[in-house]
């Protein structure tokens, strides 16, 4: 089997995903192209350098529609001989882009890929692409569809997590992210966003609230209680799948859920020959990849079975993994992961996560993989695992091994 290595990983800063967010003025194509250009420039790529650009993106309508990946290639300095593939596995799209590149390399196809993703949530609102699972009764009623916040609260109820635990995790995410920024831990991968004239638009994650305290979070109202218990009553739908529970405890709110942000990330993946050709040193081997489907109602428990699957497939146990990145879609997702594998909290999301810095859906998978790699190098660790929960009941994971 051909090996797949990561040679470089970059990301944009994350802008608040609102009209007043700094990246609101940047198009999805422009931000994607900046990532591609930066990756090409940093690594001296030219001509038909890679086999494909695989680009994760969730809300593929409007400016993110029409095969955004190809548009991004054409808007960048890359050669037009390089095609582009937009993919969507919701929140794991960016990770699956990397996995897809790695697996094609494993299969002997091509020598290099650019994989990553983008999501401009301030410009293309979440859910604006529609989803049959939410509104087609055969699915919505048939599978017991509920919005993710209800699912997250259901996880907390089913596995016994309290509001305080969730809020404490959020505070810790903020603290760790602030420390990471203060110590410049993101500087290797950070590519500031500039306008066409070279003027700076954003050079830091602007969603963060480092001063967040437990008492401030305690004051927030649960965000999903009204839609769950009142109209339209999603709790009832969810509880039909979990009839042993009498009710759902609503513990999530804006402060312990991931932030809505704009952002992009890109990873340069290739085989050994690719590294030789461009004089690049491999930073890590993509040791294993996995994806699974799980109950769509509780929806966000995927990191547990997908991690079990990837560990089993690579002959490892959770004890063998030095560092974990578990996307902080909601606090309960990470709490459940830690509970299931009984891992030391110090090993998980060392530099904070989506609760503090935000979750640009299609980009996040590639982002946390880069964050994992940077931290593995900084802390001089060997094995790292990145995983995300995925809408509609899925999960994806990647194991990296430093060379």
């Amino acid at each position: 089997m051909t090996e797949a290595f990561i040679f470089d990983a970059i990301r944009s800063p994350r802008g608040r995903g609102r009209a007043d967010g700094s990246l609101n003025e940047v198009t999805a194509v422009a931000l994607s192209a900046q990532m591609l250009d930066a990756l090409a420039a940093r690594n001296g790529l030219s001509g038909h350098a890679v086999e494909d650009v695989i680009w994760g993106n969730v809300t593929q309508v409007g400016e993110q529609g029409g095969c955004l990946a190809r548009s991004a290639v054409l808007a960048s300095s890359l050669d037009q001989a390089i095609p582009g593939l937009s993919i969507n596995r919701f929140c794991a799209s960016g990770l699956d882009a990397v996995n897809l590149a790695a697996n094609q390399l494993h299969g002997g196809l091509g020598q290099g890929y650019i994989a990553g993703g983008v999501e401009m949530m301030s410009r293309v609102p979440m859910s604006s692409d529609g989803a049959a699972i939410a509104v087609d009764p055969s699915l919505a009623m048939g599978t017991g569809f509920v919005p993710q916040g209800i699912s997250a609260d259901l996880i907390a109820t089913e596995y016994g997590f309290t509001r305080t635990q969730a809020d404490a995790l959020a505070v810790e995410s903020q603290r760790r992210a602030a420390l990471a920024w203060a110590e410049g831990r993101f500087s290797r991968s950070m590519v500031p966003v500039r306008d066409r004239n070279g003027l700076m638009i954003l050079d830091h994650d602007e969603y963060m609230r480092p001063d967040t305290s437990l008492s401030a979070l305690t004051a927030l109202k649960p965000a999903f209680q009204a839609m769950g218990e009142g109209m339209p009553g999603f709790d009832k739908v969810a509880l039909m799948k979990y009839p042993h529970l009498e009710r759902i405890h609503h513990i999530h709110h804006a402060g312990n859920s991931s932030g809505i942000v704009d952002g992009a990330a890109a990873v340069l993946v290739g085989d050994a020959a690719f590294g030789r050709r461009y004089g690049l040193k491999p930073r890590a081997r993509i040791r294993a990849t996995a994806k699974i489907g799980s109950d769509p109602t509780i929806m966000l428990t995927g990191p547990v079975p997908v991690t079990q699957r990837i560990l089993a497939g690579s002959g490892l146990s959770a004890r063998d993994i030095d560092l974990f990145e578990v996307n902080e879609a909601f606090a309960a997702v990470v709490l459940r992961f830690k509970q299931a594998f009984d891992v030391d909290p110090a090993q998980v999301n060392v530099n904070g996560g989506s609760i503090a810095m935000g979750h640009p859906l299609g980009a996040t998978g590639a982002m946390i993989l880069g964050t994992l790699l940077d931290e593995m190098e900084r802390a001089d660790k060997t094995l790292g695992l990145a995983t995300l929960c995925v809408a509609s009941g899925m999960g994806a994971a990647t194991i990296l091994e430093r060379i």
Partner: protein
Amino acid sequence: MPDFLYALDSDGVATITWDVAGRSMNVLSLAGIDALDALIDRALGDGAVRGVVITSAKKDFAGGMDLQVISQMQSGGAEAIFAGVMRLHHVLRKIERGGRDAKTLTGAKPIVAALTGTGLGIGYELPLACHRILVADTPKARIGLPEILVGLFPGAGGTTRLVRKLGLQAAAPYLLEGKLLDPQQAAAAGLIDEVVPAEVLLARAKAWVLAAKDADLVKPWDQKGYKMPGGAPYDPSGYMTYLAVSAMTQGKTMGVYPAARAVLQAAYEGALVGFDTALKVEARAFTSVLLDPTAGAMIRSLFLNKEALDKGARRPALPDESVRCLGVVGAGMMGAGIAHVAAIAGINVVLVDATVEAAERGKGHSASLLDKDIQRGKATDLTKAAVLGRISATADYAALAPCDLVIEAVFEDPKVKAEVIARVETVVAETCILATNTSTLPITGLAAASCRADKMLGVHFFSPVDKMALVEVIRGAKTGDRAVAKALDFVRALRKTPIVVNDARFFYANRCIIPYINEGIRMVAEGVEPALIEAAARMVGMPVGPLQLVDETSIDLAVRIAQATKAAMGAVYPDSAVDGVIFALAEQGRLGRKAGAGFYAYDSAGKRTGLWEGLGAFWPVAKDQPDLAQVQHRLLMIQALEAVRALEQGVLTDIREGDVGAILGWGFAPWSGGPFSWLDRIGAGAAVQMCHDLSKLGPRFAPPALLTDLAEKADGFYARFAAVSA
């Protein structure tokens, strides 16, 4: 005689008058569809015709589809159903197009629906296809689509047209709940165009025909650039609506009503395509519902058999026994409730209690119910005065003298009841029928206190009397036919549904409800998660879980029943596992809702806040929990087996009553059509197997001989007893 008549006036307006012979209410049959189609062709093809008015010769327009049509279609399988529905779509679409030019959308002949009164089901779907709907101003008329209540949905274009007319959110109450409106409300809600005085209905309809322009004759959905009100599923506005309606419907129906999902499926898929394709989609969804056994079972029990019982299927063939004057003794909750519903039905009531004050308090119950109706716009001060005027509250038994039916509803104590009966008999006429309202006491024993047992019987009204649709009429050993006829005529006047059962412990309803409650309590004792017990019950279509139900009826009542049953049965008493739980709760003072504490906890306002957290300390939740289906099978089967035993033992004599009574009396999974329909649906063989599997829990699940016999002969309840019930 054809169902539709045709006449052309000198102005060129053709009138098609619906008048089905031999029926008080028009219904649409297969022949009727053909006749209507031919007349529409005639009008559209006749150059002298400028437009058409479709009306009725009866006081109402139409009550719906002839259910014969449905069963005829069903027998032909999917292909026949789909073809039949598409044929109807074709006729209605022809009306909607009015013979216009397909390209220019001009030249249509106006076709107006002029409703003399009620238009339900196809009686509203046909008007929906017309260019304008006028309804005579008849406040008692009802407009709407009640199909969902019998497990169907509007399948003659009603779903597609109403969603396009109002949007899904506004159409939902009519499609998903079968909400009916009077003409004024229907006009305000946009279901119809105009309410006009009855005497000018036809004149106004004709005037509209003559004045109509091309633009009036093209429905919004047939125009370019049509936008669905409230948004289509993938419009930003519509997205949330479709998402919410699916979730709400799932929560409300607990997933057990195929028609609810099918109507939403038709609405959703239909909204994404053009009108004619949407009709096809609707027809496919409707076909799937007709093929599902739920619709057949619900129609049989909730429509056909309920109607048969309402009309006196079990009434002895005797002259009219309409109640002229009702006596009610005991002005407590039940007595006052009975007095109230009788007075509402126009019957004069003498309400007797030990003191005038107590009797007046009973009458006050009626006043407060009427006040609530006034608040909701369902009654006026005038009707309130009239109803209260019919109730005379007194402490004087002699006032009962003119009564032809006296119902005693005093405390459930045989001695007290016997005394009251004896006292009543001293004042009433020889012909007066005496009924005792009881949910548990054997009638034959009470009748022993009477000197004329043939004129005595039991009635079992359910609480709250004004809301519950069922009345059990209990025939004692010596009860005569005239007494039964009197009781049935009384129930009919109340517009409630009667079942006639023979005298045995707990009669029919309580006989089945008690094991249901007990099975739930047993599971608590076994360590089944209480939330699972309650959810399993609701998810199999029971209106309330067994633990909530016993909280409502009260734990101390359960204790009293248990003690009485134990005393009566002696050593074979099977329910000591249940008693352990209820006696313990009673000892804690947790007597149910009225005590603000039972299986559930309650807040200071008496609202349930959740299962009592202390249950786990008494009956720890087991590590291994049964799966949902097993809990559901236990809860349904325990009721169904009791119904079978009631039939075996002659308490029930008609399975129709067993099914209708179970649904109306205690809400037995309406989707199933009742316990006998449910057993038929799973099949006697499978039911016996399920019994054997459940028998490890105790002999209470042993299959009754009748069920075993049906299984051995590959027979079913309706197959075997249909002749008796026809």
